[in-house]
Structure formats: structure tokens, C-alpha cells
């Protein structure tokens, strides 16, 4: 059991989900996080590309 599981005693928290030990380790695993950083950067570039694609010009009024 991880200590955060105790928080579920509060009824407000009942329906949430919290990461287990493995997920928590991965959140701070340097190698995995470097991979995720590359992944997020690629996703962000994707967003930038979509924005560029959507850039349009309109005749001025």
C-alpha cells in the first residue's frame, strides 16, 4: 500500500485514481522522462504545424 491510498477515506476523493508505485517511479525515471520529453516536444511541433496549416489570409474589409 502507498501512503496516498489513505486519502480515499475522504468521500470527496472516492472516484479518483491515483498512481501505484510503478507509475510513480516512472514519473521520475530520468531515462523514461527523457523519452517522454521528446514525445511531448514532437506533439507540440504537431500543434505548431496544425496552427501554421490553419493560418489563412482574408481580404481586408
Amino acid at each position, binding site marked *: 500500500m502507498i501512503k*496516498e491510498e489513505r486519502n480515499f477515506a475522504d468521500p470527496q476523493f472516492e472516484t479518483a485514481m491515483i498512481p501505484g508505485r510503478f507509475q510513480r517511479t516512472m514519473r521520475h525515471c530520468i531515462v523514461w*522522462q527523457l523519452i517522454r520529453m521528446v514525445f511531448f516536444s514532437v506533439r507540440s511541433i504537431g500543434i505548431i504545424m496544425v496552427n501554421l496549416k490553419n493560418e489563412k489570409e482574408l481580404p481586408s474589409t
Partner: protein
Amino acid sequence: MARLVVLGAGVAGHTTATFAKKWLGNGHEVVVVTPNSLWNWIPSNIWVGVGGMSKEDVVFPLAPVYQKAGIDFRQAKAVSIHPEGKDGSDTPYVTVEYTGQNKEGQTEEITYDYLVNATGPKLNFDATPGLGNGEGGIGSNTVSVCTADHAVHASQELKQVFEKAKRGERQKILVGTGHGMCTCQGAAFEYIHNIHHEAEKAGVRDNVDIKWISNEAFLGDFGMGGMHMKVNGYVVSSRIFAESLYTERNIPWIIGAHVNKIEEGKAHYELLDGSTGEEEFDFAMLIPPFAGAGMKAYDKAGEDITSKIFNPGGFMFVDGDYAPKPYDEWKAADWPRTYQNRDYKNIFAAGIAFAPPHIISKPAKSPNGTPINPTPPRTGMPSGIIGKAVAHSIVDLIKNGSSAHLHEASMAEMGAACVASAGKGLTGGQAAAMTIYPVVPDFDKYPGTGRDTEYTFGEIGLAGHWIKHILHHLFIWKAKLKPGWTLIPE
């Protein structure tokens, strides 16, 4: 030679002015009017507010940057716009009042060919009794992280709270929004999680109760009606994402709250169900509602036309569809595309200064008639993109005449990347990294969620923190116009 006057040197105004100057060259003038001598990378104020950065880390003087770029810098605040000129002259102008450059208090009329209003938000602390000081500033009951100076003060107060907690005195911390019509929940989200993180690091978390209070109808609304995003291969609501993080960190929440009064150590609120309550605190950071900068506008005869140019909140009307209509009839197409003022075609608004056609979240009222819903956020990336599109349009108008094409940057067709810090630290930090497309949901195009779940994604981890830290340096580099600045996206 044409003159472009940009009001405000925040994310939007600085982007407009610097790109316009670069594209126009020395043949035309770019004037920036802004009351502060320093540029502030506002997102990093969160870290200043927990003592993780100093004020000097997040600000730099504007004058040398503008001098290098050939931009005429006036440290002043715009007071009024005169788009038709005045008796005897058709040349439009703005009236400004100096706040620096050894001209404090002096007023001046600055004529323009094109005007960009990028004055961002006025922090309207006085909208909630006890949140403000009655003179437009922040009161003494709560702290803020909206400016670098506010954040420095917040960090000093937080330090005292941690010291008391260390001595065994139980402390209560309340973070969120200070009014039913606030935006910027994301900043409060970052601050509460950074406080949690610092409290853990200081070993005082068990002695500190941390609570969230906000005007969102559900946790994770963020003023965008929430979002459905891909997380670990699942499409989940930001509500689950946010509630899970708060649960993990033992941060209970009060949601759907209009904070209507603050006293020393106590916040009073009304909830969406009409009930009322109060929450005690030893330390509270409550974001104030935002208003427009409060400029006036006059026609040639000197008649007040403020309500023609600005909405009642002080935000400038542009090319959005402002016809009032019920929530079910809101469309992505209501959102402005070119940010050109609907009446005066040589005036544009960029960033927070433009009037949104309506809110994004579902409107909500308590049975007492109190509106309790977030107003639309216009975060850094959209503000920068809009600022650049406006610069592009004006440059084309100047170079090619009034038949030039205007550039579009509708928030309903724009994606954004957003990184919300949940704690600072090279190996121990965390942030929620998100991409979202489009910013304003389009339920016709994406029935169900309103957004493209291929592009709308979120994840929390150390990588997010690294990205946030890299972005801090990248954006300050870009704002200082250092080599390669144009290659850094907005």
C-alpha cells in the same frame, strides 16, 4: 512613413511590436506604450511565489531591448483613444500618461496610423470586498502571484507559514479564485501544487492543510469547459485528471464558489446551489477577476464612445459575433479571426485585451442569480499567436495598402501546448504537460468532446517540469530578441 502604436508590452504586445518592427524595417515607426519598465515572464511568477526563483529571474528591462530593435518606447499608460482625431485634425491619436522616463504624471497625445490594444488584464481586486485595498491594488488579507512583486510578497508570507508549521502550529492554506467570474484557474492550479511540493520538501506537509476553492463547475474545467484528452491511451475528462491529482496530494476542493467577501483569515462564499459558507485560512492566494485596462474612447466631437469600442468589462470589440445567444447556439465561428476592431479598421486588439464573444465553459448561476462560471482564458501561446497574426496584418496593410489580406488566428482553429507546473526541481519536479486542439471547442466538427483527441493529450511527470524550465529560458531569450529569436515559436 506609417506609425504603429502598440499599447502594452506583455506577451501579445511585445510579440506584435517586435515582429512588426522586424518586418517593417526603418521605413516605418513602431511605438510601444507600457507603464512598466520591466518585461515579466508571468508563468514563472509561480516559482517566485514559492521562493524557487527571484524576481530578477523573471524580469528584464525593456528599454535596451527596444533601443536595439529601433522601437520607440514610452513608459506610460494609455488613458484614452481618439480614433477620429479631434477638432481641426482627422489624425487618430491616443492620450498617454507617463509613469517613468522622468516624465511621471505628464500627459501626451501620440498619433497613429495603426493601433494595437494589447493591454492585457486589469487585476480587479476591488470586485470582491476585502480582496482589494479599495484603491485598485491588492488588500492585506490575501496574496497574489499575478505580478513579480506580488509573487515576491507571496513567497515571504508562505515562508512564515512554513516556519509556523515547523514549530508545530497547524496552518491552513487556501488557493483558488477570488470571485465568481474569474479566469486563470491554471495559475492557481500551479500555485497550489507548488505549495504542496514545497511543503513536502520542507517536511511540514503533515502540519499544513491545503484547500482549493474555485468558480469552476467541476475541478479541471479551467475556463475551457474542461477537456477530454488522451492519457495513457485512454480518453479521459480533465475532471478525472485533476481530481486524481488533488486526491493523490490530499488537497480537498470547494467548487462552484463565488467568493464574495474576504476578512482577515476568512473567505466568505456562495455556491452554485445557493448555499453559503466560510473558510478560514492562515494564507490565501486568490486570483482576482480580470477587467480591461479601463481606457476611454472619444469621437471627433469629444463625445464618449467607450461603449462602442469596449464591452462593459473594458475588453475591445473586434471581429467576433457578439450577438447574445443561448449556450446551445454558441458556435466556434463566433470567435474572432482577425482581431480588427469592428468600427475602426486601423485598430486591432491582441491577447487578453480583445472581447471574447462569450465564455467557453457552460454558463451557470446560483438560485440567487449570482453568475458563477469561469471567464475564458487567453493563455500565453494564443496571446502570442494572435499578437503575431495582428503584426502580420498591419505590416501587409502598411506595405500593400488597404486591399491587403488580413491574417487569421481564431482560437477555435488554434491548438495550444500548455505546461502546468506541479512542483519545481531538477529531479524531483513535476508538471502536467498538455496539448489541446482547438482551444475553443468545436462541437460541430468534433461531436462529443468538442476537440480532436488525436491532438488533445495530457501527462504528468518530470519531463513536463524540464520542458517548463526550458520554456522559461527560451521565452526570455526570445523576448530579449537574442540571436534566433524569430525561430522560437509563440
